């Protein structure tokens, strides 16, 4: 009965994933209360969400630093960093699969190009949020940077828009992961995935390319 399992996510990846997930979720919830306390009555006062927001901002900072360090130190970067040159040609087959025009997709490596693009985008989005967030948190300390970006109101607008991008992309992330199968979701907890899980078909054309990504 015991399924053959293989390692997928190291403990550090899982740790970063879930701390960042908690931080980002709380940041979005508290942030939306700070944005619209009347329409979004999640908290009864402004102190709690603000304290949480600032605490989680630091958690996210350390989470991002840790994840970037891990990606470099454990040579995990090639799995998640989107490469314009190598990953863009893989898009058509992926889109065909997602639009039900193909029954299977070639083996892309650990993640498909769409995932890579999203995860790389999240790094830059997180950096934008951290920078704009700290301008708004310490307006006196980062006055010059705030002015450079067009003033605090423009900074707030950027911060808010990128929050929406996070919400929408997380939505897509969660849906696509679950729709690929519960084992994918499970693997983020246990770190293991069934050895016979379909990661895509190995085709000859992919093998030629797979030598680079392997």
């Amino acid at each position, binding site marked *: 009965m015991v399924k053959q399992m293989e390692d997928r996510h190291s403990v550090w990846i899982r740790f970063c994933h879930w701390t960042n997930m908690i931080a980002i979720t709380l940041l979005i919830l508290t942030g939306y209360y700070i944005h619209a306390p009347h329409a979004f009555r999640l908290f009864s006062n402004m102190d709690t969400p603000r304290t949480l927001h600032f605490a989680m901002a630091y958690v996210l900072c350390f989470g991002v630093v840790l994840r970037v360090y891990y990606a470099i130190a454990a040579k995990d970067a090639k799995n998640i960093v989107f490469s314009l040159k190598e990953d863009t040609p893989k898009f058509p087959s992926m889109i065909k699969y997602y639009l039900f025009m193909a029954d299977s997709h070639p083996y892309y490596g650990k993640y498909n190009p769409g995932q890579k693009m999203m995860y790389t985008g999240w790094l830059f989005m997180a950096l934008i949020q951290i920078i704009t967030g700290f301008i708004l948190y310490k307006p006196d300390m980062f006055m010059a940077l705030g002015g450079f970006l067009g*003033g605090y109101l423009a900074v707030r*607008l950027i911060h808010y828009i990128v929050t929406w991008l996070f919400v929408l992309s997380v939505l*897509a992330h969660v849906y696509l992961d679950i729709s690929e199968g519960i084992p994918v979701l499970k693997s983020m907890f246990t770190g293991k995935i069934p050895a016979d899980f379909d990661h895509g078909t190995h085709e000859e054309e992919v093998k030629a390319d797979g030598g680079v990504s392997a």
Partner: protein
Amino acid sequence: MPTKLSRRDFIRLCAGSAAAISMTGFLGPYLSEAVAAGAPPVIWIQGASCTGCSISLLNTVHPDIKKVLTEVISLRYHPNIMAAAGDLALQEMYKVAEENAGNFFLVVEGAVPTGANGAYCTVGEENGHHITFEKLVTDIGKKSAAILSFGTCSAFGGIPATPPNPTECKPVSKVVKDVPVINVPGCPPHPDWMVGTIAHVLLYGIPELDTFGRPTMFFDKIIHDNCQRRQYFDNGIFAKNFGEMGCMLELGCKGPIAHCDATTRLFNGGVNWCVKCGSVCIGCTEPQFPGWPMYERMAEMPVGPATSVTVDQVGGVLGAAAVLGIGGHLAGNVATGRIGPKKNEEEKEGDN
């Protein structure tokens, strides 16, 4: 190593402390002393402005305007309150600037229109030709020891420089280079900020300035942090309409992004200020003023010219598109048998 303070040093220290804790009334005697000892003259000129800054100056209470004009400042030119007019006044101004080159202070009120070679703002005549304000600011400004930009228009462009800005108004600091510029923004600035800044440059030189050239002694505090209604914010009580109790953030208050000490200094001789009388802070001391909706929490999304789209609308549309996309894909997934009962059957088959 402690040094022995002379009487003069001691008085300077007292005056400095008085300025530091915003007791400008105490500055009067020392300023009189400075003027008596031959303090540098001050020239006040007006460009694209509403004269509100001058009106605000006339409202100064401690010291009152009579004292300011007769004892505190050696004011040689002011379009509104001087007795002379026309050619006589202009010649006098040029004479003062010439005689005290590099030693007088120029106060500029209003932005500098630079469109059409400055023709949108002419301030006098010379040999039958118009003198544009741009030329006046450049000519007089170059000779001054420092330029004091009073009001948001001269400091950052303000209302005249707000898009579409057909007159191409610019702040003074963009027109005159190589001369130190002190920005005292506000719409209008508090009289204490103006008198206090003049007093500081006359007595001690140029004060400490922040990134945007504002004296930190008046502009280092954020309205929101010192607001009387701050407790409402912390408790999550927000006014939905004007006149209600509660923090006015939802009504578009710009307190969290505005720098000045109006919360504690109070206008009209220490009686009242914007939020205390039930209005929102419009952030008039900030460089971007008034480039934002005064009574809106967040600016509209600049998706194109002449559109009024909020970020929430854009987010809502994108959110709906995402939900539809996911729903459609889910339906497709079930229909093609990638997930759902069909898949399980396949898996079972596969396991067998």
